[in-house]
């Protein structure tokens, strides 16, 4: 193909336009007059008589013949003139008709603008882009903005009228929302900046002042709950106002104002308000008020942390009173139950009112951990609570109920910092339950063990599980014993032995006492049997932990079956051969330790309704000068009489110290083992790092004392597990 342009198909001549109209300036002026008149007619609502064809063609011809600038400038000046006239009529509107007039004129302007844009469509499409002028529609909006909205006479009046109507609506009046909607939409149509600068900003400023004043009034005359109700209602009102007649973008801004003026600025005063503040709500379980406070405070910075701090302070103080109150210390079960009730109460508050907020749950947990460990007896008391439940509290309860209660106890257990102390007491209490067969169910016992194992690991519960194993083994052993030795035993007393593995059970001193001859005989037979089948074993009798059932006949022939401790049995059997015995006689014949003997005799002689012995002189306490006689006059409605030992439900102070001492002793090897483990892997480590690492490893059971750790390090150095660095005395080396 050739590069000289398209090939010539036909040679023809273009003649001049037949329909061409040359516009001289006069013709252009006449054409513009036609258009100008039409624009006025459009504004005068007489458009229906105009010919679109004529007007469009006129504008077209003006642009076509290079009179676009004249057309555009004429349009601008004509619209400006019209808008100034409109401005006057709006300004002349009386009082309440101002907005109506403004809105009506705006709608007229929009209709006119639509038609003007239509007849000037050709100019918009051709002249406006090339000359970089503003399109017709946009020009109309800009002129309205500049000559109506920003007119000095209209601008301030418009803003004030709008704000006044909003104020009235806030005061409960019914206003014309449709009209408000039209006006705000007009401002948005003129450009977001117009809406924001000419309405939204003054609106927010006035609102801030309004709510500042109102909140001052409310805070004085309302209690906390009512104040929050009002604040909530105001928030909802503002959101509703936005949805009805403001731009959606204003919602976040106006709610922020209400939040700041009504909530943030009065937050601390509200929570601490006397008789109705946060603490009162917590005390009285006012879920709705608490929920409202939570949802409102969440909207402001530091709102939730303020609630949380007050709640934490209250919890710590309340809990502290609970664990320190001497009155509540008298009954461990009551002590723990109150703690559980407090936990339930606040769990419910957090669930119902605070939306299960994790930060509040954490605050609750840290508070409980704080005050629960203020009382060093908490571990013992929790164990006693479990003991009470597993002895009788859970009798008849469903499996589900058991789980619920044990789970709640486990929550308290988790807060303990000295879990090893709990373990010590739990072992003692479990031992008593097992040996006296006073447990509601094996399943409940094992369920508790499983929970403890889940929480603290196998090592924590291995000895406890050993106790259950011993009980099972003992049962099997006794069955076998009687199956094989029934002929030898004849009609002697029946023996039931629990074989307890040393180390699994709480250590007890086992002073020997003199058993009655009848019992001694069968015990020796069992010993021979057991050692015959378990080579290398060693048996030691723990008579202080046994029980006995005795049949007794009293003066008038009345017969009773007495349930007594082993020690009490030893005492009572002496009276088969003597009518009266002095304290010293009994002590010599039985060799029961004095403290145990006194408690034992007190149960037998000084408890009304259970005094199978009589003592002289009559008094409440046992003294070494007393003499005891068989009580022929004893009577009871029951055939079976249970004579319990006067047993303390909680340890006496000396016993407590003894238990604490044993706990401390047990901690030493654990700390040393941790130190050795750490140094074996680190080889070289400084003092502070060892302390931190040991604490970290052991804190699941107890919080090691840094002083104790230091002593254990010294001990390991003496025994040449570790050595000090020659240069840095705070640096230790592991010796392989």
């Amino acid at each position, binding site marked *: 193909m050739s590069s000289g342009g398209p090939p010539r198909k036909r040679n023809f001549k*273009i003649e001049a336009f037949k329909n061409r109209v040359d516009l001289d300036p006069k013709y252009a002026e006449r054409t513009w007059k036609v258009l100008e008149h039409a624009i006025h007619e459009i504004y005068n609502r007489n458009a229906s008589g105009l*010919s679109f064809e004529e007007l469009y063609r006129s504008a077209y011809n003006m642009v076509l013949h290079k009179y676009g600038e004249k057309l555009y400038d004429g349009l601008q000046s004509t619209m400006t003139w019209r808008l100034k006239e409109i401005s006057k009529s709006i300004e002349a509107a009386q009082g309440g008709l101002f907005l109506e007039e403004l809105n009506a004129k705006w709608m007229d302007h929009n209709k006119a603008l639509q038609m003007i844009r239509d007849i000037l469509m050709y100019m918009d499409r051709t002249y406006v882009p090339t000359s970089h002028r503003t399109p017709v529609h946009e020009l109309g909006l800009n002129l309205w903005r500049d000559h109506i909205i920003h007119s000095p006479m209209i601008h301030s009046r418009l803003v004030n009228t709008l704000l006044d109507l909003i104020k009235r609506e806030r005061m409960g009046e019914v206003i014309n929302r449709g009209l408000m909607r039209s006006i705000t939409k007009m401002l948005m149509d003129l450009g977001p900046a117009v809406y924001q600068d000419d309405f939204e900003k003054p609106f927010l400023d006035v609102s801030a002042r309004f709510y500042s004043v109102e909140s001052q009034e409310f805070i004085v005359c309302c209690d906390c709950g009512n104040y929050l109700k009002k604040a909530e209602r105001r928030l909802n009102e503002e959101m509703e106002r936005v949805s009805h007649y403001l731009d959606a973008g204003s919602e976040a801004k106006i709610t922020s104002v209400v939040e700041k003026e009504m909530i943030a600025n009065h937050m601390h005063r509200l929570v601490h308000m006397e008789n109705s503040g946060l603490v009162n709500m917590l005390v009285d379980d006012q879920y709705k008020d608490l929920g409202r406070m939570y949802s409102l405070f969440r909207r402001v910075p530091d709102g939730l942390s303020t609630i949380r701090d007050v709640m934490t302070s209250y919890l710590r103080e309340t809990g502290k009173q609970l664990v320190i109150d001497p009155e509540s210390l008298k009954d461990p079960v009551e002590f723990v139950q109150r703690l559980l009730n407090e936990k339930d109460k606040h769990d419910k508050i957090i669930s119902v009112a605070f939306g299960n907020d994790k930060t509040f749950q954490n605050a609750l947990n840290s508070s409980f951990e704080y005050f629960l460990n203020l009382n060093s007896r908490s571990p013992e008391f929790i164990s006693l609570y479990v003991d009470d439940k597993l002895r009788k509290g859970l009798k008849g309860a469903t499996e589900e109920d058991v789980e619920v209660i044990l789970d709640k106890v486990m929550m308290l257990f988790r807060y303990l910092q000295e879990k090893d102390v709990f373990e010590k007491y739990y072992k003692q209490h479990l031992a008593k339950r097992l040996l006296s067969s006073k447990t509601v169910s094996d399943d409940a016992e094992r369920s508790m063990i499983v929970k403890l194992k889940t929480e603290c690991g196998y090592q924590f519960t291995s000895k406890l599980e050993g106790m259950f194993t011993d009980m099972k083994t003992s049962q099997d052993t006794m069955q076998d014993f009687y199956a094989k030795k029934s002929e030898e035993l004849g009609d002697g007393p029946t023996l039931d032995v629990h074989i307890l593995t040393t180390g699994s059970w709480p250590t007890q001193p086992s002073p020997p006492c003199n058993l009655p001859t009848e019992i001694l005989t069968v015990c020796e037979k069992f010993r021979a049997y057991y050692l015959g089948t378990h080579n290398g074993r060693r048996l030691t009798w723990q008579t202080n932990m046994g029980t006995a059932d005795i049949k007794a006949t009293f003066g008038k022939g009345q017969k009773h079956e007495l349930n007594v401790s082993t020690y009490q049995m030893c005492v009572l059997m002496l009276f088969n051969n003597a009518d009266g015995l002095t304290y010293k006689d009994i002590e010599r014949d039985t060799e029961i330790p004095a403290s145990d003997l006194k408690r034992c005799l007190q149960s037998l002689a000084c408890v009304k309704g259970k005094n199978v012995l009589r003592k002289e002189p009559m008094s409440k306490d046992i003294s070494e000068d007393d003499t005891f006689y068989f009580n022929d006059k004893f009577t009871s409605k029951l055939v079976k009489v249970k004579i319990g030992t006067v047993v303390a439900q909680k340890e006496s102070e000396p016993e407590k110290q003894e238990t604490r001492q044993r706990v401390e002793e047990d901690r030493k090897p654990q700390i040393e083992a941790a130190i050795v483990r750490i140094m074996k892997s680190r080889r070289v480590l400084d003092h502070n790092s060892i302390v931190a690492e040991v604490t970290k490893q052991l804190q699941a059971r107890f919080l090691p004392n840094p002083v104790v750790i230091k002593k254990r390090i010294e001990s390991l150095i003496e025994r040449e597990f570790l050595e000090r660095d020659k240069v840095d005395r705070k640096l230790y080396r592991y010796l392989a």
Partner: protein
Amino acid sequence: MSDSTFNSCFTHQFKLNYEDTEKVAIGYSVSSEDILAGGHLWRIVCYPRGDRHEKENKKGECLSMFLRHESESKDAKAIFEAFVMDKEGTVSSSHHSRLVRVFAPKGSGGGIGSLGWRSFVKRSVLESRYVTNDGWFVIVGAVKVVQEEDPLDLPPSNNIGSHLGLLLYSAAGSDVTFVVDGERFAAHRAVLAARSPVFKAQLFGSMAEATMTTSIPLHGTSAATFRAMLRFMYTDACPEEADDSDSDSDSDSSPGEMFHDLLAAADRFDLDRLKLLCARKLWNNVCEDTVADTLICAETYNCPQLKRKCLGFFGEGKDFKTKAVLTDGFARLALEFPWILDELREKVGGSA
């Protein structure tokens, strides 16, 4: 023998011993198993010494190759290729044959179901050029079925233009009448409004025409131009030169002028597509005598595409430029559109 697929068609290989084939009778054949290709069954058959005694094959001098259609259902159009492999194992170019035929179903009386080449290759040539040292030669046959296009695969071409054209022609249901140069044009408001924002504003706006029940006069456009524009709005078709010969009026007007006016009308009524179609018509007829007038038209009626083409025309060729500058149109261009001369100077890089 081995079967394989090659380039989406089915191939079959015959590997035969030359000495053995010397002893077979004329008409003896070896064939492939049934081949399934394109939904039909086929067999490729090789006659080492020809399929029958013929004048050219009295003593079995030629090897024959055939493709036999084994399906009984219907005809099938197939491509059949056959070639001999060189001693080196490549395809021989001199003995490579190909045919495309319609094969009749098996057992049909009328058509041909077996086609190929009776004298595919002379045995003497085979012996001298294709038999390997160990006495073998290889012939390959390939078959591919030609699929007919499914008419449902192709959507029918758009015919909305002709339907709307009929609507315009019949004036059925028209609701507006324009009077142009004394001629009356019946039309439909909705169609015009859909095609042109100017007509939309006029016919559905707030001025007199929106509610006029009588004819709407339209000035500034000729009847012929309006007719062409109206036809475009209904059919999207730009008129051809031949259409004007049927016109009763303006019989002396030239096609160029018609497109000139039509482009102006397209610009006026905001019909961008029609404007471009007219611009193309004008450009196709441009020459040194008319380029200046066409350039004026492009500038006046806001057609930058056509303007760019015309400016380029002036920049090509010394003779064309010289000749174009001497026209009356160019003089008017210089007088009324002086800024275009500046653009021209930039274009040609010299003084006009």
